[in-house]
């Protein structure tokens, strides 16, 4: 039952990353690809009806993590206190930027919110990457089951680690590049004209950065977290997860070349899913590795009582099927490229 919930929580986080990943990515490239007011409104319109629904996956994944692994929720969230609060503030600023920008048209108001939208999106991408890096590297848990990590210490992988060290910064940069590519492919698919072309070119250029960083981070991770290698030798079939990521990368390049915008975006989804699945597979059965392996939180030590987990499977399945239904309806209603000139009621510029 614990392993089932480990997979379900991982699934929800993965969906969150695939979905919010493209709107964070769209934010990160906002100032790079969209120069005119019309282009910027197009970028915002491409994510306008869906971004808060995407963020619901974060809330739902958080809630699921809370009830399935309460010990992990308590240790992890209080240990990452400061960076999590900053993530919250960035999410608040970013939400305000998306929603408030188009209420007034002015040469001061618009660029202000555009920059805030871009800046908060970049920082959130880096923070999420660094958070993942922290989980893979392990945190300074002790026998109490708690820890409190400072933002940084000496940037080395010793026993006294901070949120930021050279490893987590590398993962943060990888996350930013991967989200930029993902977001650029989304913008390319959802817009038209010069903006779409520019986003496509940016996706192609970012691809090289993602490639180099993926190779580098993967190589380093085998040294930082020995469990990954151990799991791969125990269950060799686990190699399909990194292969999925490789196939996704290949697919992005190929589909960009073929100019299949939709397939390129889906390939990028496969890359992100493959990377996350590899991490989840690599640290199993730990849910939060500790620097001292004695104190690592595992599925067994962090999970909730078995009755609650069994009941949860029932309602969770019903709820997620419903949610998938609504999401499909929304994405189908807003399918196709955004067009800002047809005077249709809405977009984000309300």
């Amino acid at each position: 039952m614990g392993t089932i919930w480990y997979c379900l929580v991982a699934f929800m986080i993965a969906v969150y990353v695939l979905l919010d990943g493209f709107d964070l990515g769209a934010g990160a490239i906002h100032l790079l690809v969209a120069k005119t007011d019309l282009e910027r409104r197009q970028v915002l319109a491409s994510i306008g009806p869906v971004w808060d629904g995407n963020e619901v996956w974060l809330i739902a994944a958080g809630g699921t993590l809370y009830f399935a692994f309460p010990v992990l929720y308590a240790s992890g969230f209080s240990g990452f206190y400061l960076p999590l609060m900053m993530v919250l503030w960035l999410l608040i600023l970013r939400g305000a930027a998306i929603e408030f920008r188009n209420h007034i048209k002015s040469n001061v108001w618009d660029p202000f919110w555009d920059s805030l939208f871009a800046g908060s999106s970049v920082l959130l991408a880096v923070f999420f990457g660094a958070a993942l890096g922290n989980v893979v590297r392990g945190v300074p848990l002790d026998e109490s089951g708690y820890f409190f990590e400072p933002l940084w210490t000496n940037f080395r992988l010793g026993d006294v680690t901070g949120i930021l060290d050279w490893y987590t910064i590398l993962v943060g940069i990888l996350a930013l590049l991967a989200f930029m590519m993902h977001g650029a492919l989304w913008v390319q698919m959802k817009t038209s004209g010069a903006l779409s072309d520019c986003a496509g070119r940016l996706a192609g250029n970012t691809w090289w950065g993602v490639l180099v960083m993926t190779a580098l981070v993967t190589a380093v991770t085998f040294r930082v977290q020995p469990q990954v290698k151990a799991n791969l030798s125990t269950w060799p079939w686990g190699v399909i997860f990194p292969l999925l990521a490789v196939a996704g990368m290949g697919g992005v390049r190929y589909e960009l070349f073929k100019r299949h915008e939709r397939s390129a975006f889906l390939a990028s989804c496969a890359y992100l899913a493959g990377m996350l699945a590899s991490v989840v597979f690599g640290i199993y059965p730990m849910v939060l590795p500790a620097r001292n392996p004695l104190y690592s939180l595992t599925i067994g030590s962090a999970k909730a009582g078995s009755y609650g987990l069994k009941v949860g499977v029932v309602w969770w399945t019903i709820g997620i099927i419903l949610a998938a239904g609504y999401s499909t309806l929304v994405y189908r209603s807003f399918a196709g490229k955004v067009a800002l000139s047809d005077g249709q009621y809405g977009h984000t510029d309300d």
Partner: protein
Amino acid sequence: MEQALGVHRLQFAFTITFHYIFPQLTMGLALLLVYLKTKALRTGDEHYNRAARFWARIFGINFAVGVVTGIPMEFQFGTNWAAFSRSAGSVIGQTLAMEGVFSFFLESSFLGLFLFGEKKLGRIGHWWAGFLVWLGSWLSGYLIVATNAWMQHPTAYRLGAQGEIELASFWGLVLNRWVLWEYAHTMLGAVQTGCFVMAAVGAFYLLTKRDASYGRTFVKGGVLVGVAAALLQVYPTGDNQGKLVTDNQPVTLAAMEGLFQTQSSAPIVIIGQPSVRERKLDNPIAVPGALSFLTYRRWAAVVRGLDAFPQDQWPDMIPLLYYSYHLMVGLGTIFIAIMLAAAVQLWRGKLYESKAMLWILMLSVPLPYIANTAGWFTAELGRQPWVIYGLMRTAHGVSPRVGSGNAWFTLIGFMGMYAVLAILWLFLIYREIENGPEPESGLVSKPAIGVAAD
């Protein structure tokens, strides 16, 4: 640690109080939007669709602020209340996760369609989108109140080997006997906020002699729904909520009423200041026997005062609890008076010309916000010194490694962030009210909501 406890409590109190400004209007307005959309469907009058579009814009701004201030609430269970989460997460995590899975997906998906898809959905489809937004927001309210109800009245759990609290019955959790009345009482409070806001905007339009047809619709809708909500708020929901407190948290009742000594024919104090040091109420104005009657339906019944309980079980901020409770009850009574008076004027056909009544409706708009806030203060301060009533003390629930300095830093950070949000929100809501609904002509309709701002 004691010092950190206070800061953690203050941060949660501040962030939840600020957050709840927004959902109470969203939940109330969601119902009124269904009212307007239903009117539009049944009368076929485009006027109601235009009115609904106007309120949908205000709803959208309000919803966005509600979402971004809501995410910190869930996170803070883990960041600031780790020990509480570690023990109780497998129970209250259930309802919180269900809120995400069942209501937030529903609400956010159909709000997107409601705001941006009126043309694509058609008349019936758009009504359904509005209805599902209402359903999602009210379901979310239910699951949050169920979470709170479990903390007020823990049931359906068992203690595990290491003292962790485990869920024992799913239906026991979601159908906790505390939930029904607390939920009904909370939702009616939200509906009153929606009604007072709608009526106030209508009164503003009538008093400033602009958009008069909309002004009449808004005042009428707000008053008709509002009078029902105001009455139901007191009876049966408030009355039954009080009975639950009497039966299960008698010490809370004594503190709310400022009853220091156990007595028969206990009075209800209308005005008076509790002095905890001297254990008495200063300058009370009281109705003799009324508290005994309301709690036990007998004028001579004995009501236990604070002296009947050990002092370490007393709520730790009795004056604040007492004032919050009295403010809530007092305002609830005033709402009945205002709404009944307005309804009588409406029935006599004089409301739209009655300047005095319109002024009162317009200026009353902050009052339901204050009443809802005071109501939650009563519930949360009344539960102290427990975070889970009778099971876990608040002092034992905080994160052991997050010191007071860090908590002060983030509390002040939230204050600054929310001050900016509040200014933006007020500014944007003011602009929507100032821009007003689309003109009635029907020939020249504003094509896109955004174009009005261009």
